[in-house]
């Protein structure tokens, strides 16, 4: 076999690819579901924490800052491993899917809180004072005056961070979730041919390339004119 034949036979083996394509497609669906669950829960919780922090209750804010720092400092894989392999030692069993979802949700929550908070504090003090002096309450000021302005500048960093963390769904394969990478790994060990990994890589590109290009577009679209 020539080098080229060996290359194509290993990475673009049509027979192996056809055999494992259905599994990879199933994994694709699972990755998408996992990603959507993480995005929904992470963004919501992050926004809630940022709003809670705006009330300025000292001990509560310290707690929020600590939790946010914690999940920004810990590698996501460490959190996943702790939830999936650690908790069973204490008698709590989570499925791989739930462990990965929970871990990445907490990470996205932390980054989201941080970004929203930066957005809220970036709104000029005069805006608060003007809104309050027209008779709006604290919650009304936050909801109608501050948040709409804060939201705009948070969109680019938030989009990029969300994309980066969503890519972390591949980590779920470490805790036996049959997502794209999980299905590809299984395919390689059954067929003893790395073509399923090629398929997996293509699947990730199909999923994330448009998202990355979208993120780039968002960044220019919302760029602040200096």
């Amino acid at each position, binding site marked *: 076999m020539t080098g080229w034949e060996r290359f194509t036979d290993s990475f673009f083996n049509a027979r192996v690819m056809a055999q494992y394509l259905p599994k990879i497609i199933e994994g694709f669906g699972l990755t998408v579901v996992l990603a959507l669950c993480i995005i929904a829960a992470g963004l919501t919780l992050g926004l809630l924490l940022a709003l809670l922090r705006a009330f300025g209750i000292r001990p509560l804010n310290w707690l929020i800052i600590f939790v946010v*720092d914690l999940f920004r400092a810990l*590698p996501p894989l460490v959190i996943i491993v702790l939830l999936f392999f650690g908790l069973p030692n204490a008698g709590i069993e989570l499925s791989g899917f739930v462990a990965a979802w929970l871990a990445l949700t907490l990470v996205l929550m932390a980054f989201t809180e941080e970004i929203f908070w930066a957005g809220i504090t970036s709104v000029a003090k005069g805006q608060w004072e003007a809104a309050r002096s027209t008779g709006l309450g604290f919650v009304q000021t936050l909801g109608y005056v501050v948040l709409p302005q804060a939201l705009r500048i*948070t969109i680019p960093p938030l989009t990029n961070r969300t994309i980066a963390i969503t890519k972390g769904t591949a980590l779920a394969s470490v805790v036996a979730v049959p997502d794209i990478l999980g299905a590809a790994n299984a395919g390689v060990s059954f067929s003893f041919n*790395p073509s399923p*990994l090629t398929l997996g890589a293509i699947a990730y590109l199909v999923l*994330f390339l448009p998202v990355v290009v979208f993120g780039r577009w968002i960044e220019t679209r919302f760029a602040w004119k200096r």
Partner: protein
Amino acid sequence: MDRNALRVEAVSPMDLFIETFFNWQIVHDAWPILWQGLQATLLLSALVVPLGMIGGIIIAVLSTVHSPWVKWPLRVWVDTFRALPPLVLLIFIFAGLPFIGIDVGPWGAVAIGFFLNTGAYYGEILRAGIESVPQGQLEAARSTGLTRGQTMRYVVLPQAVRNVLPDLISNTLEVVKLTSIASVVALPELLFQARQAQSVTYNATPIMVAAVVYFILLWPVVRVLSQLENRQLAGRR
């Protein structure tokens, strides 16, 4: 049977929690191999951060070339490696390439994977930095007789780096955190060693210790970054 053996059933949930996650005896026993893991993690970070930075500088400098023959391949390259999850890339290199006779081992796989992945990220950040340096700086430098390379090296890059410093630090933090995926290809870094210790002791304390070590190591960086980012975002108004 010893009476104490029966008492195990009656421990309170709090005791069980401490016993499982903060077991001092196990911290003591597992520390030597966790320490080895921490050293490997630090070495790994010291290897992949400069490697990614070199990749990033190459990409950023190439992106100043205006030819479409450079611009489009470069954009496809950067977007591909930003779209591919790093773990996928790592496993492809570690488990895929040996099938065609290229076996680079765990350290080699991590080095190549991180060079490609983090290089693309650093490249994007530095490109934004270079674009933030006014064109007049470049022209002034060139008119004083500096060559293209010298202008880049002494005038543009120092200002570019300063302008995107928070993003560079943030990305470096992510890279150090990301070294934990090397555990998947059995490179004996902190998380891998913690897993080994856990499977021997049937106790989650080693993983907890690893988490605490990561936190102690990276918390100061997160604090500094949080301050820098707040200032940066506020400055955009």
